[in-house]
């Protein structure tokens, strides 16, 4: 089959690899129809996530048709059309039973390595490094789905791939970011990053009752999308205005009641701190670059919530712990427990409350995955979200 392989930093290629096989009783093989490039794939692309191997198959946002199931899968059969959540989760361990599937205790065969980096291991994830399991990803014609009896969600035929594909990751991820904010009526939510997760976090904040949703980015086309389609009431271009001052003005000096970091470890910015982070990252002294997070903490209202939806992999410096402690801020984060959001969010899509496909700017055949990565990475041609059509 054809699959998108990570060959090194900023080098992805569509190669011919072996077809996946059933390896465990609860596996399914899915023929991928649509798959997307995630912002977090760019961290792999740019070489920031450790333990990638030359040849790894990428992709954790995908959907398609069930081709084959193992003997332990009784709820799916060949021909079912499914969206697959990006965390691999067993459904049996204490974390899964609590609904926190991205903390599955059984789905990372390399948990011992992940523990050395993070203290404890999260779940395994498709196509997302060997620290997270060494699973082949879904930017391919076919993919093996472990624990297929609890992960994949059957989707109705009247909804298009584009409408439901993002249930695999970024819609639940954005929604969980907004949910972590415990939004009360009348509240102001600020979202750092107008990428796909930021757009869907802003839209979710609106769905959850925020009075005002402020989106911060540096690309006018992305801010425009947030205003016209993503549910933002206000936008701030941080290359043109001071974000702190702008937020103070928009909120009567209170600051946003909650802040969502939808940027993660490669954030951009200005000034001495940005220069220092970039230099340290280049020298591998500081793996992650936390400008957006620092700013979100500084800007957040007293007693507010800072929710981290963006991906961080390692360590950060100059963390403003004083602001967190002295102003009673709550930090929340987590890889999305996608399983628990998929059904309710599908219901919202079916009811017409939201159509997440508004973020798609590019559709390419799988064979042009490398071009898709380049467009997305360089923000060329107004790129917001790339969907690859594998069939």
């Amino acid at each position, binding site marked *: 089959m054809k699959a998108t392989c990570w060959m090194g930093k900023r080098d992805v290629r569509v190669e011919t690899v072996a077809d996946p096989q059933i390896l465990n009783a609860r596996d399914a093989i899915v023929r991928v129809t649509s798959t997307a490039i995630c912002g977090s794939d760019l961290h792999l692309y740019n070489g*920031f996530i450790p333990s990638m*191997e030359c040849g790894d198959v990428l992709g954790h946002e995908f959907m398609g048709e069930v081709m084959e199931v193992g003997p332990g899968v009784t709820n799916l059969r060949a021909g079912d059309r499914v969206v697959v959540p990006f965390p691999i989760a067993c459904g*049996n361990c204490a974390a899964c039973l609590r609904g926190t599937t991205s903390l599955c205790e059984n789905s990372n065969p*390399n948990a011992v390595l992940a523990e050395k980096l993070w203290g404890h291991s999260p779940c395994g994830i498709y196509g997302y490094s060997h620290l997270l399991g060494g699973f*082949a990803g879904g930017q391919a014609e076919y993919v093996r789905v472990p624990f297929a009896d609890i992960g994949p969600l059957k989707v109705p035929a009247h909804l298009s791939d584009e409408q439901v594909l993002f249930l695999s990751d970024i819609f639940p991820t954005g929604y969980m970011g907004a949910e972590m904010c415990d939004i009360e009526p009348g509240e102001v939510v600020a979202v750092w990053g107008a990428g796909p997760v930021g757009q869907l976090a802003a839209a979710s904040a609106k769905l959850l009752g925020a009075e005002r949703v402020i989106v911060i980015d540096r690309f006018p086309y992305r801010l425009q999308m947030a205003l016209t389609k993503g549910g933002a009431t206000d936008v701030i271009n941080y290359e043109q205005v001071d974000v702190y001052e702008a937020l103070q003005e928009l909120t009567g000096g209170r600051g946003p009641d909650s802040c969502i970091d939808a940027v993660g470890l490669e954030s951009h910015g200005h000034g001495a701190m940005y220069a220092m982070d970039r230099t340290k990252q280049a020298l591998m002294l500081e793996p992650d670059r936390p400008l957006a997070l620092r700013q979100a903490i500084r800007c957040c209202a007293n007693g507010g919530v800072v929710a981290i939806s963006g991906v961080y992999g390692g360590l950060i410096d100059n963390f403003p712990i004083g602001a967190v402690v002295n102003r009673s801020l709550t930090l929340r984060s987590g890889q999305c427990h996608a399983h628990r959001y998929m059904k309710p969010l599908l219901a919202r899509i079916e009811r017409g409350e939201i159509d997440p496909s508004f973020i798609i700017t590019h559709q390419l055949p799988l064979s042009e995955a490398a071009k898709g990565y380049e467009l997305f990475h360089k923000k060329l041609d107004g790129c917001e979200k790339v969907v690859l059509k594998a069939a």
Partner: protein
Amino acid sequence: MNAIVTAKKNSELVSQRLPPPAGSSWVGVGLGLAEVVLLGSAIQSYRSRNGRTKGTAWAIGAAAVGGLMAVRARSAARQRHALGGIRIAKSITINRSPSEVYEYWRDLRHLPAFISYLESVTVDHGQSTWRAKGPVGVTLEWRAEVTADQRDEHLAWRSMPGASIPNRGQVRFAHAAGNRGTQLSVELFYEPPGGPLGAAFARLLGALPALQLESDLRRLKQILETGEVLHSDASIHTGPHPARPSSQKFAGTSTKFGKAGI
């Protein structure tokens, strides 16, 4: 039974010469130099193969080597007073009752399903025969006997006299607080082969068998909680391998590929 063993107590235990005094409940399972070397070489090859990429170099630096060095330094400090025995201890929580976990472990033939260096365990006449894969294709074999067996609580065993790697160990099955199943505590002791030099070498690598034991217990947890050992596209291979489907044909869903290539 107190599952927490202090460092002082450890060194006392470790310094006991094998076989243990009569009546002792400290008995063992074989963890050979074999696995020390296997795991060590796995990590070495992982490192050398991947020095090419910045991301992976970072991984090895931060995740594997850094972590291992830290653990190793602690282990070395802990074992400095040992007279040659190596102690490995790990604990894991399994979402099954102590009785279920005990029943599974008590049938020693199940052990190779999750202990990666074991090829087989056979049981006959109250004793058992253990076969393990050693380095460079050598197979080690020894006989062992169960020396303590408290249903749903405690199991202990040791190798019979004459084993090339004298070893002993015990497993405790305790209720995990808050209805979280079983808190399983495993403690293994072994006498490395090769005289003082071999002992020094094994001590130097003291952290690696501990990592191996932890991986083994995670596989046991997978079996008991999910029904089998989970494979990923990379873990079906014994060494480092890209996360892409294998061109080899794997038949069935048995656990025979459950030897995670770290």
